[in-house]
C-alpha cells in the first residue's frame, strides 16, 4: 500500500494572510487557487483513491449528526420533512431546504485538479459512494432546492442533478465516527510511476481555520485489508508478545513451583 499525504491548509494561504486565515477564507474576492506538487515514492497501481482528510472536525457532534432528514433525501414527496434538520431546515422565507440539515449544508467544497508531467490526470468521481446509498437512500427524483441560499456553508449543488447522482454529497453524509476522518474524493484510473511529480491545483474554499482544523490531500492504493493502517499490525504484535510472555512466565512458574 502506497500512501501520499499532503497537508495543505496552511500552505494554501497566501503569505499576506497567514495572520488572518479566517478573513482570507471568508472573503469571496480572494483567489483561493493554490498549487501543490509532490513526488510518487513508489509505483502506484490503479485504482488510486483520492481522499480529503479533515482533522478536528466533529462530524459526530450530537447537534450535527442528527441534523438530517433521511425521509426527505429519499423521496420527492417528503420535501417538507425538515423537522429533524434544525437549525438548517428552511430558508428565511420558510421554504424547505433540499437537502436540509447541517450535514448537507456544510458540504466540503475544496476541489482538486491533478496533472503529471503537464498532462491532466483524469479523476473519476463516479461510484465513490456506497451503491446502497445511491440506490435507496438518496432518491433519483429529489433535486436540490433552496440549497445554500442565504447563509452559505459549504459547496453548492447543481439543482438539475438528482441527489442520487450527487456522489460528493452522499459520501459527505455518511458521517464519520471520529474527528479525524477521510472521505473519498475520486479515483485515478491510471498507474503512477515512481518519481512521477504530481501537480495539484487546489481550490482552497473550505473553512477549517475557524476551529483550527487541518485539511490534507491523500492519495492511496488499497489492499485486501483496506488502506494503510499500522494499528492492526502493532496490536497483533503487542498481543502476541504479551501472550508469549505470559506463556513463558507460566512455564517458568510451573517448572519452579509446580
Amino acid at each position, binding site marked *: 500500500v502506497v500512501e501520499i499525504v499532503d497537508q495543505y491548509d496552511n500552505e494554501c494561504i497566501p503569505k499576506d494572510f497567514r495572520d488572518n486565515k479566517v478573513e482570507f477564507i471568508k472573503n469571496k474576492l480572494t483567489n483561493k487557487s493554490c498549487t501543490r506538487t509532490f513526488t510518487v515514492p513508489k509505483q502506484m497501481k490503479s485504482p488510486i483513491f483520492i481522499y480529503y482528510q479533515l482533522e478536528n472536525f466533529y462530524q459526530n457532534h450530537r447537534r450535527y449528526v442528527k441534523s438530517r432528514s433521511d425521509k426527505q433525501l429519499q423521496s420527492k414527496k417528503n420535501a417538507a420533512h425538515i423537522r429533524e434538520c434544525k437549525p438548517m431546515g428552511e430558508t428565511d422565507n420558510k421554504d424547505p431546504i433540499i437537502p436540509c440539515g447541517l450535514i448537507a*449544508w456544510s458540504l466540503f467544497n475544496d476541489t482538486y485538479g491533478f496533472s503529471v508531467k503537464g498532462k491532466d490526470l483524469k479523476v473519476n468521481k463516479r461510484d465513490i459512494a456506497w451503491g446502497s446509498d445511491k440506490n435507496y437512500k438518496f432518491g433519483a427524483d429529489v433535486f436540490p432546492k433552496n440549497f445554500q441560499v442565504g447563509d452559505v456553508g459549504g459547496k453548492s449543488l447543481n439543482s438539475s442533478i438528482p441527489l442520487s447522482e450527487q456522489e460528493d454529497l452522499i459520501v459527505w453524509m455518511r458521517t464519520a465516527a471520529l*474527528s479525524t476522518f*477521510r472521505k473519498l474524493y475520486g479515483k485515478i484510473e491510471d498507474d503512477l510511476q515512481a518519481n512521477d511529480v504530481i501537480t495539484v491545483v487546489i481550490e482552497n474554499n473550505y473553512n477549517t481555520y475557524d476551529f483550527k482544523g487541518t485539511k490534507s490531500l491523500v492519495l492511496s492504493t488499497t489492499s485486501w485489508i483496506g488502506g494503510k493502517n499500522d494499528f492492526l499490525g502493532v496490536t497483533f504484535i503487542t498481543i502476541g508478545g504479551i501472550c508469549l510472555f505470559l506463556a513463558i512466565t507460566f512455564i517458568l512458574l510451573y517448572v519452579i513451583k509446580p
Partner: protein
Amino acid sequence: GVIECPGPDKDIRRFDGNLRLLPPFIDNDVCPLTIKNTILQSCYLRNTEWACGVAVYTGKKGKWIKLVWWAHYLGKCYSNETKLGMTRGIPEPKLTAVDAMIDKLTGAIFVFQIVVVIVLGTAGNVWKDTEARKQWYVLYPQEFPWYELLVIPLRFELLCSIMIPISIKVSLDLVKSLYAKFIDWDYEMIDPETDTPSHATNTAISEDLAQVEYILTDKTGTLTENRMIFRRCCIGGIFYGNETGDALKDVGLLNAITSGSPDVIRFLTVMAVCNTVIPAKSKAGAILYKAQSQDEEALVHAAAQLHMVLVNKNASILEIKFNGSVLQYEILETLEFTSDRKRMSVVVKDCHSGNISLLSKGADEAILPYAHAGQQTRTFVEAVEQYSQLGLRTLCLAWREVEEDEYQEWSLMFKEASSTLIDREWRIAEVCQRLEHDLKVLGVTAIEDRLQDGVPETIETLRKAGINFWMLTGDKQNTAIQIALSCNFISPEPKGQLLSIDGKTEDEVCRSLERVLLTMRITTSEPKDVAFVVDGWALEIALKHYRKAFTELAILSRTAICCRVTPSQKAQLVELLKSCDYRTLAIGDGGNDVRMIQKADIGVGISGREGLQAARAADYSIGKFRFLKRLILVHGRYSYNRTAFLSQYSFYKSLLICFIQIFFSFISGLSGTSLFNSVSLMAYNVFYTSIPVLVSTIDKDLSEGTVMQHPQILFYCQAGRLLNPSTFAGWFGRPLFHGREAIVAFVISIHVYAYEKSEMEEVSMVALSGCIWLQAFVVALETNSFTVFQHLAIWGNLVAFYIINWIFSAIPSSGMYTIMFRLCSQPSYWITMFLIVAAGMGPIVALKYFRYTYRASKINILQQAERMGGPILSLGTIEPQPRAIEKDVAPLSITQPRSRSPVYEPLLSDSPNTRRSFGSGTPFDFFQSPSRLSSIYSRNCKDN
C-alpha cells in the same frame, strides 16, 4: 341472640366471645364462645356434613373472616372437632441478603452515574463554550436561554441511564421462580412415606438458604418423627416396662390389670378419659382416634391396648369399655391445656355412682407441687428423671374426688371466667387453679418420640458447613438434652461441654449467666464444643434484664438448647439473632412454631403429623428434617452462586456498554452523541446479554455429591463471599480499570475503523459485535458445567446476533441498511473481532489460570478433583477440621439410646462411616455400660 366479641386482632388462635340469647331462651343466658367454636376463613370441614354459624369479623378484604358456629345439642354448646387451617397471618416481606446487596450496589452505581453525568455535563458545557462555538458547521446560536446549559448533562444522563440494568429485576425474578421450581421438582426431596414433595412458597429467597448462619429448630415433629408411642409407666411407685422397653407387654402390668389393682385402673381411666380425643368408628368397626395432640392419642391407644377402650364420646357422655363392661362418664367441665398451665384436667361424673372426680394430667412441675400433703412424690420425681434421661416425654397423671357442692360453687366461677371478654385466658387459669389442688398422683407415663431418619447426619453435615444450631423446644430439659445428644447436636464429655443457665430469680439467673459467659469466653480458643442450656423461665429473665449478656452468649455459642420455651419466646430468640445481623432459619412443624417461622429470615415448615400450620406459614415446606441438608447445601448454594453471577454480570454488561458510550463522548466533542442506535442498545440488554446468563440457572460449579461431601464450602456463601462490594468492584473494574473489554473493544474498533472507514454506523456495529463476542467468551469462561443448553445459549446467541442484525441490515428503511453485510464481507472486521477477544480475554484467562493453579480456593480444588474423576482428596488437609475427632465420639451418643431401645436402629444403619470407624472387631463397644454414660451426662448438667 347477640354475639359479644372483642374487635378483630392479629391473634388468630384466640377468640373470646359470648353468645347471649334473647328472652325466649332464658334458660342458658350466656354461652362462652372460644376459638373452638370458630372456623377461620378457608378451612375444611371434617367429620361433619355441615355446620351452621354466623360470620364475625368480615374484614374489608375478607382476610379476617372468623365464622362463629355452634351446634345445639342437648341444650349445651358443643364444639365439634374441625381441622383448623391456620391462615398465614400478615407475612412480612422478606428481603434476601443478596437483594439487599444488589440494592446497595444499585445505589452505588446510581451515585457513580450522577457523578459521571455532572462531570461530563460540566465538561461538555465548557467544551461547548470554548470549542464548539468556533465550529461554524454546528451552528450554535450566539444567544441562548439559561436552560440550554442543562441540555448536555441531560444528554449524558440519557446515555448513562443504561448503566443501571433494569433487566436485572426481571431476570432475577424469573430466575428465582426457577429456583423455586427446582425445589418443587426435586425428586430426592419427596417424602417417601407420605409422597409429599417439597414446596417453595416464597420464591424470592432461595439465595438466602445458602447464607444461613443459625438454624433454630423445633424438637418435636421436626427432629423427631412425632409418632408417639407409649413405652413405660410408673404407677404408684412400681415401674413397668423397664425390662422389655414396652410397658404394654409388661407382664406385671397386665397382671395388675387383670387382678384389678385400683391404682392401675384409676391410672388407665385417666389415660382414657382425660383428653380431647374424639373416637370415630370406621366402617369396618374399628375405632379411630382423632386427636390434636399426639401424646393424647398415644395414651388413648395404649389404654385401649390395656383393655381400657375409649369407645364413644357423645357430647358430654363418654363411654369406656373395660374388660367387657361399659362405664359411662359425664364430662362436666374441661380445663383446657395451655402452654402456661402445662396441664389439663377434666371434671367427670361417674354416671353409675354419681361421684364427681377431677382427672388431671400434665408436666411434672405442673402436677407434683399440687399433690395432696400426705403423698410422697419422690418416686415420681425419680421416675420422671429416669424417663427423661432416656429421651422420653413424661406426663404425670393425677386425680381427686370432688364434692358435689364444691363443684357447683366452682362451676359458677368457671362459667363467669369463661364469659369474660378481657383476659379470659388468665381468668380461667386462675379459676382452674382453685380446683386443681390436693391431687393424688397416680403415676407417670413415658412416651417415646423417635428421631427422624438421617437427623444426626444432617445436623453433622450442616454444622460442618458452619451453621450453628439452636434447639427450641417446649419439652423438659432432660428430654431435650437427651435428644440433642442422640442427634449430634451436642457432643458428650470430654469433647463437649454443656453449660446451663438456670435460676428462678433475677439474681440467680444473672449469676449463672455470667458464669456461663465466662466459661464460654475461656473455652472459645479451645477446640471444644460448648453448648448452653436455658429453660423458659430463665430465658424470660435473661431476655428481659440481661439482654446484652445473653446476646453475647448467643454469639459465642455454636449450640444452644432452650427448653420449656413458649412460641413467643421462640420468636424473640429469632429476633435476637436477627438483631445481631445473623441470617436465621427457623424450622418447625407445629402451630407453636408459626411465629418463629414467620419471624426468621427463612422459615421452613415440616409438613408433618401436626398438620400443615407451620408448612403454610413457612417459606419452604419439606417432608422430613433430613431434606434440610439438600435444601441448604444444594438448592441454597446453587441459587446463591447463580444469583451472584447473574446480578454481577448484569451490572457488568451494562457498565461495559455504558463505558463505551462514555469513551465515545470524549471523541465526539462531549456532546452526548450515542454511538449505538437505540435498537441495538435495547436488543443488547434484552437479548444478546440476557439469554446466555439465564441459562446460568442450570450451571453447577460442583456436582451435588461433592457439595454434600464437603459442606465446608458453604462457608463461601455464608459471609457473602461471592457477592459483596469487593467482588463487585472486580466486575465493575473489569470494563473500567483492567482497560480490557470496554477500552479494548472501543480502542480497537475505532483504530481499525479509522480514516476512510470511519463511518458511524459501521464503527458502532463493530464495537457492538466486539462486545457481544466478549460477552460470549466471558460467560463461557464463567460457566462451570457445560450442557447442551449452555452451548446453545452462548453460541446460539452469538449466531442470533448476526441473524438479527442481518435482518435489520436487509430492511432498507432501517438506519443500518446493508451495514452488517458490508462488515461481514470485510476481512478486517473479523480480524478486529479476533483482536478484541484476544486482547479482552487474554489477561482474564491468564489471571484465572494463575488463581486456579497457585491461589486455588477450596472450590477450585474440588473442581479439579471432580474433573480428574479420581477420589476426592479430603479437605481436612487444606483446613484442619477441629471437629474431625468428633466422628469417633459421635457413635457413643448414639449407642446410648440404642442399647436401651432397639428403635434407634435406623440411625446406625444410616451412618455406615461412623460404624466403620470402630472397626469390625469391636462391635460390642456399642453396648458398653449405658448407665455410666448417662450418669456422666446428668452430672455434667448438674455441675453447671
